[in-house]
């Protein structure tokens, strides 16, 4: 088969980049070899045919529908529509936060929160302090066997009314030694919050009797601290000194009542 030499320009492979750039720029005066290509490109850019303009009515209809809406009003409506959900969202968030906070505060003052949170609430805004979990293991020294004054450091903040409720179940845990707290009422009477100190609220007393020795606290109000306090139960001879009834949970807090006498006057201990 004869090898017929072909013009190097015939397939466009010899066209320079400048020629091709000129073609793309729409120039018709290019290399002769590229003239057919120039004709093709010119045909692509020819005047529009009637068929290519047939959709004008459709496009104008779409334009008319969009253009018929006044711009400012549409923007204003969009702005209002966007503002309302934002305000609603903020209001809902604020309401939710308020409900949660009030609920948490209520729970804190009711004393039903978990112990760590309850302690936090107590420290933060004065909610009642946490009670120890009933099932928590109790150290032996917290069950009324602790010597007075052993928990003096905790007594500063925890001397309070908790021992009242703990004495409602005499005999359950009240295996304290009766009489050990009887020598300490004098100090408790001086404190306006020492409700059960008059009879030794540390779980002392005899389990099951529920009466203990109410009179023992009365004999020593004379430490000077609580004179004139109308709420000092020990002074009035509380017939049901709660500490004496056998504190079911006398842990550290009742021991705190021991601490107080230890600080002020252990010498009053009988």
């Amino acid at each position, binding site marked *: 088969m004869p090898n017929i030499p072909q*013009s190097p*320009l*015939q*397939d*466009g*492979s010899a*066209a320079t*980049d400048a020629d*091709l750039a000129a*073609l*793309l720029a*729409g120039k018709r005066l290019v290399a*002769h*070899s*590229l003239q*057919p*290509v120039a*004709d*093709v*490109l010119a*045909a*692509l*850019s*020819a005047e*529009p*045919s009637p068929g*290519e*303009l047939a*959709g*004008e009515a*459709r*496009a*104008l209809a*779409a*334009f*008319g529908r*969009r*253009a*018929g809406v006044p*711009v400012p009003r549409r923007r204003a409506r969009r702005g209002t529509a966007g503002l309302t959900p934002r305000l609603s969202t903020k209001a809902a968030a604020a309401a939710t936060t308020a409900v949660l906070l009030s609920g948490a505060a209520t729970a804190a003052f009711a004393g039903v929160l978990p112990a760590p949170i309850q302690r936090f609430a107590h420290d933060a805004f004065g909610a009642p302090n946490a009670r120890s979990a009933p099932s928590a293991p109790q150290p032996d020294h917290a069950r009324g066997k602790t010597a007075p004054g052993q928990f003096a450091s905790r007594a500063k903040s925890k001397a309070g009314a908790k021992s009242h409720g703990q004495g409602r179940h005499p005999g359950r845990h009240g295996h304290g030694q009766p009489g050990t707290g009887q020598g300490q009422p004098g100090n408790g009477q001086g404190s306006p919050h020492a409700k059960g100190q008059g009879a030794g609220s540390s779980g002392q007393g005899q389990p099951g009797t529920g009466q203990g020795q109410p009179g023992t606290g009365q004999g020593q109000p004379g430490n000077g601290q609580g004179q004139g306090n109308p709420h000092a139960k020990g002074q009035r001879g509380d017939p049901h000194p709660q500490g004496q009834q056998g504190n079911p949970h006398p842990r550290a807090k009742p021991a705190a009542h021991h601490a107080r006498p230890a600080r002020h006057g252990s010498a009053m201990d009988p």
Partner: protein
Amino acid sequence: MIGDEFASLLAAAQSGGEAAFSRLWRDANPALLRYLRVIAPGAADDVAAETWVQVVRGLRSFRGDEQAWRAWLFTTARRRAIDLARHRSRRPETPLDDVTVAQLPSTEDCAEAALEHLSTAAAIALLSGLPRLQAEVILLRVVAGLDTESVARLLRKSPGAVRVAAHRGLRRLAQLTADAGVTL
């Protein structure tokens, strides 16, 4: 291309001027259809109509010169064409049993058609014989009037890749016309 009048026409169209919009449409729609007849054959008119609807929606917020306007227009058209192709690919194909031979698409040789009557339609048919990227680049450069950088952004290619594709496409086009018997 409109030229210096473009800014005022665009502003008038954005203000609701129907005549201004008509002018923009008449200037751009033929090129749009020619482009779509290559990249979305058989659905060019529908895609063009959808493109204009979308353009009308965003017309008020458009900012830019005529080059940007055309780039936006052809980008929108290309996306609509791609969406249409995806939609069609998900649809089950129509069986050919009920189609007569007369309804089947002809396999007319693109080069022959171009040589017989080098009309716009024939040129589009000839261009359809090129690889897709090369044809698209040539159309966007020649028909849409976009520069290399705009085409590169539209196609998400580098300007160098666009140049290479354009030159290869032109060389391939020259080969097609030569094979069809064009004497040099």
